[in-house]
């Protein structure tokens, strides 16, 4: 019973704190750029405003257009239940391992891309094919990273990986170093961060993620934006689970939770700071440089795999 409650708590926590994370990230970026931030709670105000606006459907679009925001949101909520954020060994965790998790993200992405192509506008299809290109290279890089962790823990279940990596304390493996570098690059690419995509841009020719949302309005747009914020939190959570797992306890030891939750929030805050720094210091890449970026991430992931196989570490 406690496990189910904990599971529900995890999903709700992720869903409702995701806008806060996005707001914190934006505020930090703004401070680093010497401007006055709008406050961490701005995302909540934006979502509130969007939910209360009227939602319009473009002519010529089909049921896919209406369905996609809910599909994406549902997929990310399911992923929030699978990734061990608060505790390992939650009831939903054995239902999907790392490969299925990547597949789940891919499913959400395909729905988004198909909904964009449904509108039939040049910008949406532009964003769609760019997204598929980035994904075509980022997904293998992500899988290579996750394989390195799986090979080390001899399992593909995220709970088992986290439990194993926690025990190792400071036994740092070279392969995990490469995996961490690759994972960070994939995080930037998949969540439409600089240097791959500018989340604040509205210039049509430089958009990837934003381009696919152009026709949405009202509650559908709110769902898509919220979904993107949840996706960022999920990727950061996977990164924490793989590379900084100390503090994620098994479900049985739930009593320790009041101690571990502040540590978790601290880790998220640190991640927000690092992301803000990276976004401020780097410039956005030209679109045809981003395959190079993704290829570098992929090949770093492969080097991680290689160093596991050939060096045994």
């Amino acid at each position, binding site marked *: 019973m406690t496990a189910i409650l904990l599971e529900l708590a995890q999903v709700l926590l992720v869903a409702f704190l995701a806008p806060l994370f996005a707001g914190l990230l934006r505020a930090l970026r703004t401070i680093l750029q010497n401007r006055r931030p709008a406050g961490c709670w701005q995302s909540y105000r934006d979502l509130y405003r969007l939910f209360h606006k009227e939602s*319009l459907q473009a002519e010529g679009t089909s049921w*896919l257009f209406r369905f996609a925001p809910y599909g994406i949101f*549902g997929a990310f909520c399911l992923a929030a239940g699978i990734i061990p954020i608060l505790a390992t060994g939650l009831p939903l965790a054995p239902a999907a391992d790392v490969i299925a998790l990547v597949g*789940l993200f891919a499913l959400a992405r395909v729905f988004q891309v198909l909904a964009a192509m449904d509108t*039939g506008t040049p910008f949406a299809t532009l964003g769609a094919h760019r997204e598929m290109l980035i994904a075509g290279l980022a*997904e*293998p890089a992500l899988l290579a990273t996750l394989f390195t962790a799986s090979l080390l823990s001899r*399992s593909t279940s995220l709970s088992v990986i986290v439990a194993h990596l926690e025990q190792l304390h400071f036994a740092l493996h070279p392969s995990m170093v490469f995996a961490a570098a690759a994972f960070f690059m994939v995080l930037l690419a998949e969540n439409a961060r600089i240097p791959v995509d500018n989340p604040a841009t509205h210039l049509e020719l430089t958009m990837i993620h934003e381009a696919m949302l152009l026709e949405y309005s009202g509650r559908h747009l709110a769902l898509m934006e919220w979904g993107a914020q949840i996706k960022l939190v999920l990727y950061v959570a996977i990164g924490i689970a793989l590379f900084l797992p100390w503090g994620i306890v098994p479900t049985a030891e739930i009593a320790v939770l009041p101690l571990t939750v502040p540590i978790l929030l601290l880790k998220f805050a640190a991640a927000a700071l690092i992301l803000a720094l990276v976004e401020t210091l780097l410039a956005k890449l030209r679109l045809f440089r981003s395959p190079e970026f993704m290829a570098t991430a992929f090949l770093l992931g492969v080097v991680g795999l290689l160093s596991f*196989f050939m060096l045994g570490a």
Partner: protein
Amino acid sequence: MISCLPLDLATGALLLWLGLGLLGFLLGGWPALACRLVFPASSVVALLLTIAGFTALTATPDHLQLHGPLPALPWSFQIDPLSGFFLILLGLLAFAVALFATGYFRSLPGPDLRRLMLQYHSFLLGMGLVLLAANAFTFLVAWEIMALASYFLVVTEHEEVGSRHAGFLYLLIAHLGALSILLGFVILAGATIAQGGPFSAMLHAPLNPFWASAAFLLTFFGFSAKAGLLPLHIWLPDAHPAAPAPVSALMSGAMLQMAFYGMLRVDFLFFGKLALWWGPFVLVVGLATALFGVLFAAVQTDMKRLLAYSSMENMGLIMVAFGLALIFRTHGLNALAALALAAALYHALNHAFFKGLLFLGSGSVLHGAGSVAMDRLGGLIRQMPQTAFFMLLGTLAIAGLPPLNGFVSEWLLLQAFLLSPALPQSTLSAVLPLAAAGVVLAAALAAYAMVKFYGIAFLGQPRGTRYVHEAGRWEQSAMALLSLACMFLGLFPGVLLNLLHPVLLEMLGRGFAIQQGLWLTPVSAQRASYSPVIFFLGMAIALGLGFLLIWSLFGRPLRRVPVWACGFPVRTPAMQDSPLGFVQPLLRIFAPLYQAERQADDAGRWQVRIGEPVYRGIYQPLNRIVLWLSAQVLRLQQGRITLYLLYSFLTLLVLLAIWR
């Protein structure tokens, strides 16, 4: 009683198919009646074949020998779990395709229909006989029937030059392959080839390493010609589009798997000892095929050609799994080999279903919209909603997305790769992570290609076609059945894995644990577990709850408005991505591979033609060499009588000298 049922049932079903083909030929004068009668009967017979396959999985292997016209060469048939599995594949696919054909060929004129029915059923007969053959003679005769029948089906539209060219290339490569298989069988059978080369004599044949490798290479070359692996794939992209859609579905879904069946039978059962380099060789060929196939699938503008290249990619993935199984088997790790082989067999069945579904859908599009060229399609989801829905399921399945079936076989393959640290040899330890990375790259690019396939044809605004009608009831039911099969295989993978157990036992001597309930745990729950049903339910609940919550709180009816499109006043269909425009980044990144040429045509439009590097690099030079050689030989024909008399005289002298 049970033991003799499967073989009798199977041979009976095949004879019924032949009978139906002849019946269809005779009834050609009444096309509507013939169509309504023959094809549904054909699907019932396919069901019988499937039942035979199911019973063969659990029954003891059975044997049948008939004596034909040639006294020393008997027809020999057998059925065992391996044949049973492929009979299930063939039967289920033929069932759905025959239902589709009932509606699809309704409007074909009499003479064409009678020929088509005969050829179609001969094709099915050939494939079934290949699976039941128990000696080299029967196998090769059946192989030839399969090749010839499919040749005639490919050149159905023989008025088109393209069809004839496609047929010629197909026949050429098929016969090259058959010759190679024959030579391989001769080596394997040794002296017993005089009695027709029974498979039972070839089992674990003791051959010295040189001849074993020669037999392996010859049979692999021959079967890869049929499977469409690199570099013998050039017939695939031309032959599949030329054939009618149901035939393409059968060719892609079933015929390519016959080659896989051949490889399985030869490599796992006939060779006693596998050499170290065979497994990695198959793996590398499979990986190269998969990457080549997916890269070329992405840049096609014709729906059927795209699907043909995609078949190449999927066969490559099956070969990767097969090669991995061979590697594990060579090192004696039979449990891991069972996992890799299960992944290969699962993917073969998955491919039959989702590729069959996609080809049938393309056929519906051809009939409904008049073209399969993607630059003239678009927006079909509004005018062909049911077809579009089934095609969406097929696209999601082939892109390897959970919770459908394509994901399960990829999951199994990746799990097998992750178990490979158990291998002792260290040089493999460099190849295998690269191979795993290559597999995931191929899968990700396949998603790109298939999203393009679905999005350009079915979504957006119509680019050219105006009058579109939906597919008929027979076609829709066939596609619905295949979609259901995809969903079933995706949600309940344990069922198929338990069915595969006898097959794996036969091939490797061991299977893996029986899957229970809703969980897929091939090795152990600690190691990896996946539950598609919980996954699907979880997503459905999250989606449903989200929808209800938001609808109750913020729900209002949606208003239809013109598209915003960033405020552009004009919006034409040409402003959307064209099929090549959607993959323009790939064209740029892999430009040396594609050798794309841009030319402006008379209307001022750019035409981009993609070259075929293997054709230009290997086949055209070979062609030139062969032509040059023949030109040299032509010099013998001078036209002077005295010279011909000289040839005969010289030959006589030589023979006399030797004979003495």
